């Protein structure tokens, strides 16, 4: 045997051993690395700045057989980068973190890992609408679900001897807002209406909390138009009565308005409602309380609204599908659940309450068990199909309705007509 053939033989042998160890790698976390064998690359794209340290410390420690590369990409650039990578067919990440709202259109392409086998048997452990996917597959579970709550500066209200009644309905909250308006001379607000897409999503949160949806689980248009119009009318009435602060939490002035007690109540999810509040206005610690999402009327079941969330999904054509599955499912291990609770607050996996401690008292909210209370309200079944178009249609119609150019009924008809043409 000449030298060239010998070299080929050695290379083939090493490759065969490497392939065998790679195949075993995902089944026995940690084992391969302990034996000093093959390390698989696992590329993960994230937009959340809190994710990389958790992934590196938590997942990479639990699975040392993966060489984890976490690439942080601003949320505004993420979908462009992903589209270019998917269209090019190479340089695909193994896993990508996606905003829930953008996931519907992407999953419909059929280019994501089907996790039905892993997540299907666990379906009962998630609320309806938490497991998401396209083409009849389950591609991901929603993390940090956007359960909405009413965040209230309890101390600011107390200065006017105003209190939120126990187990309130929205009519009770409107009455409180009216009292506040009268007591403050119209300088303090219990409601916030942001402009543009955030305003549309705020309206959508109220609508979804009443069981409303634009699309059904099969991606067909399924709107209760009366419910949609009635909800929009409610929000427009708030505005007409001067009970609404117009602004958005991304404005530089927004947190000043909270600091100055101009905004003393607002409807929001955990991420912005609790995390950003504590980060931006630490001096108001102890003043704020969470009021779980009010009912529409006395006899109704309580149900929260949805304001987004995020998820991790694996790419079908990427190099390491086994690693992607390991990574996504790791978030449901005790360490992963704790990481979810630490970074996102809410955990959508119902057995989590028995595995990790979720009933911690939060001193910022006067010792209230905020995570526990927010999660205790049932999540709405809501489907984010065609969301860019849906959000754009809602935004335009809501803008016109707020401006008084069209009625809520006309606004909803306009949305339905636009979505029907898709």
């Amino acid at each position: 045997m000449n030298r060239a053939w010998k070299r080929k033989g050695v290379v083939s042998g090493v490759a065969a051993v490497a392939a065998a160890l790679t195949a075993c790698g995902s089944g026995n976390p940690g084992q391969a690395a302990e034996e000093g064998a093959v390390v698989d690359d696992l590329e993960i794209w994230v937009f959340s700045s809190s994710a990389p340290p958790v992934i590196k410390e938590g997942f990479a420690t639990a699975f040392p057989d993966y060489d984890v590369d976490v690439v942080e990409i601003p949320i505004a650039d993420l979908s462009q980068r992903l589209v270019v990578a998917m269209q090019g067919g190479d340089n695909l990440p193994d896993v990508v973190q996606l905003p829930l709202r953008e996931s519907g259109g992407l999953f419909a392409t059929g280019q994501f890992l089907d996790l039905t086998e892993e997540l299907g048997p666990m379906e009962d452990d998630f609320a309806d609408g938490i497991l998401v996917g396209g083409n009849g597959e389950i591609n991901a579970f929603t993390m940090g679900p956007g359960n909405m709550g009413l965040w209230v500066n309890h101390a600011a209200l107390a200065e006017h001897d105003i209190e939120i009644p126990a187990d309130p309905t929205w009519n009770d909250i409107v009455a409180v807002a009216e009292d506040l308006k009268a007591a403050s001379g119209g300088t303090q607000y219990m409601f916030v209406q942001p402009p543009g897409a955030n305003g549309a999503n705020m309206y959508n949160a109220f609508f979804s909390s009443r069981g409303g949806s634009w699309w059904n689980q099969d991606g067909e248009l399924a709107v209760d138009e009366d419910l949609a119009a009635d909800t929009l009318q409610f929000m427009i009435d708030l505005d007409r009565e001067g009970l609404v602060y117009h602004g958005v939490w991304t404005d530089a002035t927004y947190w000043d308005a909270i600091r100055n007690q101009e905004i003393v109540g607002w409807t929001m999810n955990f991420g912005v409602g609790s995390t950003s509040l504590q980060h931006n206005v630490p001096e108001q610690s102890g003043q704020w309380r969470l009021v779980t999402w009010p009912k529409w009327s006395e006899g109704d079941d309580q149900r929260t609204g949805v304001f987004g969330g995020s998820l991790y999904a694996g790419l079908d054509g990427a190099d390491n599908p086994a690693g992607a599955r390991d990574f996504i499912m790791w978030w449901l291990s005790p360490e992963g659940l704790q990481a979810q609770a630490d970074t996102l607050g809410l955990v959508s996996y119902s057995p989590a309450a028995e595995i990790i401690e979720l009933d911690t008292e939060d001193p910022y909210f006067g010792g209230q068990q905020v995570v526990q209370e927010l999660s205790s309200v049932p999540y709405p079944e809501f489907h984010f199909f065609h969301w860019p178009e849906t959000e754009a249609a809602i935004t335009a119609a809501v803008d016109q309705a707020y401006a008084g150019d069209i009625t809520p009924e006309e606004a909803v008809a306009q949305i339905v007509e636009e979505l029907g043409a898709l």
Partner: protein
Amino acid sequence: MSASGRRRSQKYHQSTPYLFIAPFFLLFIPFGAGSVLLALGMSFVDWPLGQSPELVGLDKFATVLEDPLFGRAMRNTLYMLVGFLLALLPLCLLVAVLLKQLRRRTANVVQVVIFAPITMSLIAVALVFDLLYNERVGFVNGILDMIGVGPVPFLSDSDLAPWSIIALRIWRVLGYYAIILFAGLQAIPDEFYEAAELDGAGAWQRFRHVTFPLLKPVTMFVLVASSIAAWELFAEVDVLTDGGPARSTLTAVMYIFGASFEQFDLGKGAAASVVLAFAIIVSTVVAHRLLRSDDRA
């Protein structure tokens, strides 16, 4: 010099210009012309994410042209373009003429000051204007409040929002184009003005019959360059209004971006790009013709 030496020298002189422009074409062919051709090709295919493209002829153009949103985006863009140009060109001329009246040292200082906005990051400028326009704490509304007006919903009123965007764009590019016109003004020999003055022409007549006609080539450049930039309006709108309220500031490029990177329909986005490019070419030809026909008259 021998005959062969002369030939070499002649060849050298003939090829020199091409060497100077070669670096531009080395970049333009793959990244400029190549991208245009790629977009043109993509406009004839349906190319779902991660799958192979499929030829669909003119289907994507039909989808775009039948989409009322694209019509809306093009109308908005045209509206903001016309408003922008109608306000920009007279202002630029005025500033250029005023610059010419200043002493050289003063003019130099003023040029630096008015040129500065174009050097600033567009996103940063848009964020600053977002604060200036703010209804509650914005500087502009503060001033208006002092004279008993307002608050004016600069960005949340669908009639005002396009003009608020136009104002930002004018602030940003006014100095840049005014300096170009100023350079054109300086190239006009003083003898023409002296002759016109001897003929009894007043200030307006000197401007109309001397300045304006002789400044036409530069005005043409300003008109074409600013109108192309106006057709491509995106970043300011994305930051300030996101196309709202009620789609009153939705522009053609926002539509293209949405089709490509939010709806993941690259064929539709490419077809819309081709239509936009066609509109830019048509508007450039029209502007050119208008100024040239005026020349003949």
